[in-house]
């Protein structure tokens, strides 16, 4: 089976043969991966020893290796063939929900409905762990909704602002 692996946007083709042999971009590599515990893996690749922490998310894997974080998506050849007929998935459209990353208290709301915001512009100030945390816009857009007011307590994951 062939896998197309996106590592921080860079694509690698990894083929795993039925007998366990591994080809990276068509070249054989000697790869031995063993799970140590849940998210912890040991990989020996051409005798080099690596330890990886692998978190599974909705969109793929979040891999930590040697202090560097990699965001990884894996697609196998069957799935790629299935999708080949269709157009490439477009950039995300529709509204973007900005959520509270931790539970806390809304101290201040910095934007109003209808306002244009730049990427990284502060939207809301959330107090948690006794510190004020600025919640910033993940991308540019227009504020469609503001769902919180100063003094509100919010749970983790609560939608604070909707950008369009």
């Amino acid at each position, binding site marked *: *089976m062939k*896998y197309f*692996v996106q*590592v*921080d946007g*860079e694509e*690698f083709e*990894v083929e*795993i043969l039925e*007998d*366990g*042999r*591994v080809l*990276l971009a068509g070249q*054989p*590599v*000697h*790869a*031995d*991966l*063993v*799970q140590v*515990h*849940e*998210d*912890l*893996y040991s*990989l020996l*690749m051409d005798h*080099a020893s*690596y*330890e*990886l*922490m*692998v978190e599974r998310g909705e969109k793929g*894997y979040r*891999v*930590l*290796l*040697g*202090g*560097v*974080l*990699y965001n*990884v998506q*894996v697609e*196998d050849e069957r799935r790629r063939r299935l999708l080949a007929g269709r157009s490439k998935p477009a950039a995300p459209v529709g509204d973007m929900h900005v959520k509270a*990353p*931790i*539970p806390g208290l809304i*101290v*201040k709301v910095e934007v109003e409905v209808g306002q244009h915001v730049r990427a990284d512009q502060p939207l809301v*100030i959330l*107090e*948690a*762990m*006794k*510190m*004020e*945390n600025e919640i910033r816009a993940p991308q540019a857009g227009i504020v469609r909704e503001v769902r919180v007011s100063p003094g509100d307590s919010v749970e983790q994951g609560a939608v604070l602002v909707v950008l369009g």
Partner: protein
Amino acid sequence: MFRKVLVANRGEIAVRIIRACQELGIPTVAVYSEPDRLALHVRYADEAYYIGPAPATESYLRMDRIIQVAKEAGADAIHPGYGFLAENADFAQACRDAGITFIGPPPEAIRAMGDKVQARRTMMAAGVPVVPGTAEGITDEEALAAAETLGYPILVKAAAGGGGKGMRTVHSPEELPRALAAARREAKAAFGDDRVYLEKLIHPARHVEIQILADEHGHVIHLGERECSIQRRHQKLLEEAPSTAVDSDLRRRMGEVAVRAAQAVGYTNAGTVEFLLGPDGNFYFLEMNTRLQVEHPVTEMVTGVDIVKEQLFVAAGRTLRWRQEDIRMKGWAIECRITAEDPFNNFLPTGGKVTYLHEPSGPGVRVDSSLYGGMEVSLHYDPMVAKLIVWGETREEAILRMRRALEEYRIGGVRTSIPFHIQVMHNDAFIAGRLDTRFVERLFAEPNTLPREPQVVAVAAALIQRERERRTAIRLKPHRRLPSPWRWAARLEAVRP
């Protein structure tokens, strides 16, 4: 020595204090809140008392309850650790009134240093250099005028503050009103007091502090400096001792000033005098932390003095076991604060269950930790869950040792600051010892220079994905035998390139 010591704290510092007591043969009493029932400090202490639900105001900050537990358990001394009640003069006074020894300075010294503006005045009178600034409790209008006189950039600080809370840097008059408002809000929330004051910003500055020990018989010594410039939003992330900016002459001068500062307020027990060290070698009193510091272990590693045991001896009325001339710094120590924060997501605090834990050890490595396998990291408390400290003969050895220790540290289930520290240990400016309080800001502005291995990650991810698919396939065909153990070997020599 004490009959029994109550530790009025939680986390790694409670464990640290309990260990010191055990090593002196003193029984210990832990107190704990609802989520801390299985915490290491509860399990390591001889006795443990439940004091309330998770919020600190209903448990670790309940002076009345803690003193009542001390009486009930027959404890004749209380160690407050850091944070919570450690710098609360009323608590120190309440202990004294209850006939219990507060293991820390007298309430008068806490008060004298606790009010930042009064402390400045006292220090100026004692001939201790201070950063130019304003009086406390100024209005926004006064602040605008004073800032013009001092010259930008300036710092807005909370009169009742500490630990970076209620503190803001301001570069221009336009930013000042917003910074004042934010600082007042934070100060109000954290301390119930929204008074602020201004200070000239020394830039580029290092944050260098001097550890003090004082007994009740008039002896005050210092244990040299700690370099604490690596901070994010005024929170220290990483400390070392000694400092690459301090030579023996400067150490002696800063030490003498720090001793004078302690003497000026009748200080006893352990304390720390924080200075800003300017690029010209001038240093300015910032504040005195009238308690044990988070970063005390780096000083212990280079001086061989066990600061917590010394606190216990001194609080019991003993004479300091060390004279100034006995104190020598040997080698180099570095501490990384391991926090449950995601360095790849703006250091947001992360909770969760510790599913796997493997802490580093071996020569020259010390871990002061509150972690255990199965622990639920609570968002109710400070995100610092452990401290990794290393010692080396030289700074170079300490850095290499810290790298290997960080690489060995495995915490499953909770995101931590470990990758941040790995990055620092490979940063050229850090390795060269070129530090100031803007170090972290610059680090985040630069691209990460750690070697990237995307092809390794790609192969691992493909193998993991294949296994997931295979498992799914096996679940659909229950009669097929599950290969065990979970493993793929591609060892056939034939495929080697």
